[in-house]
């Protein structure tokens, strides 16, 4: 299995190089990173433009710029950012932003997965019952709602609750600037800020996953080996958990892992609405400022995350289905 994992990771290296090169060209040719500087008032002296052209490597041929970047990345140098006139260290920023986004994504994925499994199983077991219709309705409701809109609705709801029920749900940022001292105060503050964006992000994934899990469970439950297990007198719980759910989870794990890319995309909107400064806003700011090395850094991390999650999904097949073995 280890050899398989290493082989998969090695195969992904040329994919990453090609994708970063394409994105590098796209961002480089889509605009001028000094555009904001050109329309500043007062207009900076000409020396400033010369300084930044050199600092941001704009005086180098495009291919040379890419070569500098890719060789720099190997040594941990992600290139110069235009933000703040070069005050931003992309490597440090990546670390910080990854932690912020991971908090959001992990919480949302765990909640969405648990909900999806529970709802999928209940819906499949009680097909065409009132709970099944209710879950189907909410599933389609969340599927049909654009994320940015759902997030705004959540905010409005939280504000209403705060005003009428005396709660104090946070709607902005990942922490409060005036939080009291102590680890507990910081922990509760972090959780408070996590509630709304997590719900927003979790519900969109939950909706799709619960439908998928329901269909998968229904298929498994109607298969011959389940009938056989029941005929042999196994308990309902054992049939469901040990035989049906375990099999139904195999395609679900694939979908979850493949959805990682979609969740990363969804964090861009979630972070924007709730003003979190994670990987999503990092990409958005990078594109807005035509900050090519920021965009590349995001792409590098996003590609790695997707590759790793796909690998995890493949490896989990082996755990969930003993028939699958890797060589």
């Amino acid at each position, binding site marked *: 299995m280890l050899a398989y994992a290493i082989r998969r990771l090695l195969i992904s290296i040329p994919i990453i190089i090609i994708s970063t090169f394409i994105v590098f060209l796209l961002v480089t040719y*889509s*605009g*001028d990173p*000094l*555009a*904001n*500087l*050109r*329309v*500043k*008032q*007062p*207009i*900076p*002296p*000409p*020396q*400033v433009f010369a*300084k*930044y052209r050199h600092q941001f490597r704009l005086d180098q041929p495009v291919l040379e710029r890419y070569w500098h970047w890719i060789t720099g990345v190997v040594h941990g140098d992600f290139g110069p950012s235009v*933000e*703040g*006139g*070069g*005050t*931003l260290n992309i490597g440090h920023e990546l670390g*910080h932003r990854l932690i912020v986004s991971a908090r959001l994504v992990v919480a949302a994925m765990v909640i969405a997965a648990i909900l999806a499994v529970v709802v999928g199983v209940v819906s499949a077991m009680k097909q065409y019952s009132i709970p099944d*219709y209710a879950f*189907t*309705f909410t599933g*389609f*409701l969340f599927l*049909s*709602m654009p994320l940015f*809109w759902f997030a*705004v*609705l959540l*905010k*409005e709801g*939280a*504000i209403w609750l*705060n005003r009428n029920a005396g709660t104090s749900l*946070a*709607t*902005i*940022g*990942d*922490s409060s*600037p*005036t939080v009291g001292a102590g680890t507990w105060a910081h922990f509760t503050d972090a959780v408070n800020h996590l509630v709304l964006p997590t719900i927003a992000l979790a519900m969109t994934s939950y909706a799709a996953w619960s439908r998928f899990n329901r269909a998968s469970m229904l298929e498994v439950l109607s298969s011959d080996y389940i009938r056989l297990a029941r005929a042999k007198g196994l308990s309902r719980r054992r049939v469901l958990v040990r035989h049906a759910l375990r099999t139904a989870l195999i395609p679900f794990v694939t979908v979850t892992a493949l959805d990682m890319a979609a969740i990363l995309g969804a964090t861009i909107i979630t972070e*924007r*609405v*709730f*003003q979190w*400064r994670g990987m999503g*806003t990092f990409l958005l700011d990078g594109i807005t400022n*035509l900050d090519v090395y920021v965009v590349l850094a995001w792409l590098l991390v996003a590609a790695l995350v997707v590759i790793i999650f796909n690998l995890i999904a493949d490896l989990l097949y082996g755990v969930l289905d003993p028939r699958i073995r890797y060589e």
Partner: protein
Amino acid sequence: MLGRRRGLQVAAGIAVLALAAAACGGSSKKGNGGSSNNNVTQGRIKASDPNTVNSVSNPKKGGTLTYALEKTISNWNILTSAGNTFETAEVMDAVYPSAFVAQPDLSPAMNTDLLKSAKVTKTDPETIVYQINPKAVWSDGTPINADDFIYVWKGSATCDKCDVASNTGYTDIDSITGSGTNKQTVTVTFKQGKSFSDWKYMFGPILPAHAAQPQGLDATNLEASWDHGFADNPPKISGGPYIITNFSKDQSVTLSPNTKWYGAKGPYLDKLVFRMITDATQEPPALQNKEIDAMYPQPEVDLIKQLDAMQGVVYQEDLGLVYEHFDFNLQNPALQDLAVRQALFTAVNRKQIMDATVLQSDPDVPPLNNRMFVPGQDGYQDNVTKYGYGTGDIAKAKKYLTDAKYTGVGTKLVDPSGKAFPALQIAYTQGNQIRQTECQMFADAAKQLGITVNVTATDSLGKTLTNADSNHHYDVIVFAWVATPFPASGNAPLYQSATAQGGGDNWGGNYGHYTNADVDKWLSDSLSNTDPKAVVKDLNQADDQISKDAYTLPLYQKPTLLAYVNKWGNIRDNATSVGPPYNVQEWGLKSSAS
């Protein structure tokens, strides 16, 4: 089964619509609609005197005021071009003192906390003496003195490796010396034959020279301290009423009172928090949820409606210093004919354009008729109307063309030499709906003269303005300039020829390559004239000539909007580059606030 499924779809649709209505509707309670007194508790406040609106003589001590910033801060030296953002300046108002501070009525006023006096003591060479308040110290106890002025001068004028926001005025200084106790008498002497009418613009702010790391005023050390020491991290030293005590990157800056504050008033707040909300649409919910106390977004119709419905929130709408304008690119030979430019500017209907754009959110905005000054500034006069520009008078516009021997006027224009008049390209910033409308209406007006104007969006305003490549160029463009309390230094780079701006190909902000020897001279005179009345005369002569030459057409000032929870006193709009925190030391709780 099908019926059941359809029923579910309908129910889902109804639920979605109901949620949408809940999100968009808000409260139906109407605001006060506007009042000129300070007793308004909700809705719009109209300022009879912009400098005193919401005044409170004795604010209560205590409280935390949270003010929304629309950008994050990534460079802390606002004297660099990278750090010179409005939002960073708003925070720095509380930390680094300036010699002069632009007031809400757009006049520069001496910072009486920092200085006891600031006078021009000699005109040739121009010599200015700043007498620093003897009590003025940085938060580490070091006296504020001439070294701090020298550091700003050296960084701005002599460091060719440094990122400098502007070196205007500083390059003409010959020497700065300190004398008296703690070197707190600062004498600034200009080079022989040089003077600077906008001298009050300089030293805003000053930086603590003793904190510069590394020390030294040679180019290498200056670059290290100017571009990094003061830029990379939030300052640990303050010379203002507050000092930064916490910075949560891209989230908030928290300031506490500076215990060494030497000013006459304040600070009154326990904490002042600048919270970064980079999506303006997220500011009203944050205000409603009491996560912020004040915000300074661009006014829009929906925003005003939301604010009118917010209990305990008041807002002040004013005319800002940012103004929209049409500019011609005179590098296009077809636009070098004055008659064409006059005809196009006459055919454009400013009233219709404003009705369709800015007046939707603020019905009180008048057209702007001057490029150098805005209403309220000494020197503002109408230099546009008399030329008939912006009236939409198609008959008069056509006459300009027929008098100049153009044919095909109103159908397909042909120039006097018999060549078809080329199609023009008008550009606006991609995604800016208002500017797109402005451009479309310009094109519609031009069509009535027989001129085809193609409307295009640009993804890079800077690149398009400088005609950087074949994908980025313009014949006509609409964008905004920021007027300034220091009109001579602000406007000269926008209208002087490259020759007047030092030669070579340096056109500064004169992107359309406008050239007029008289304008060059008047603007040069305005920079060096030490008599303020003469400066106003120079600038208005230049402005009038630019109108006569039909180079640009000012449209209107963009409105500004400051909204805040009504318990806070002394917070008021300031449309200049310093923003509402210009008087942050005075901000505090009203006595009636609980």
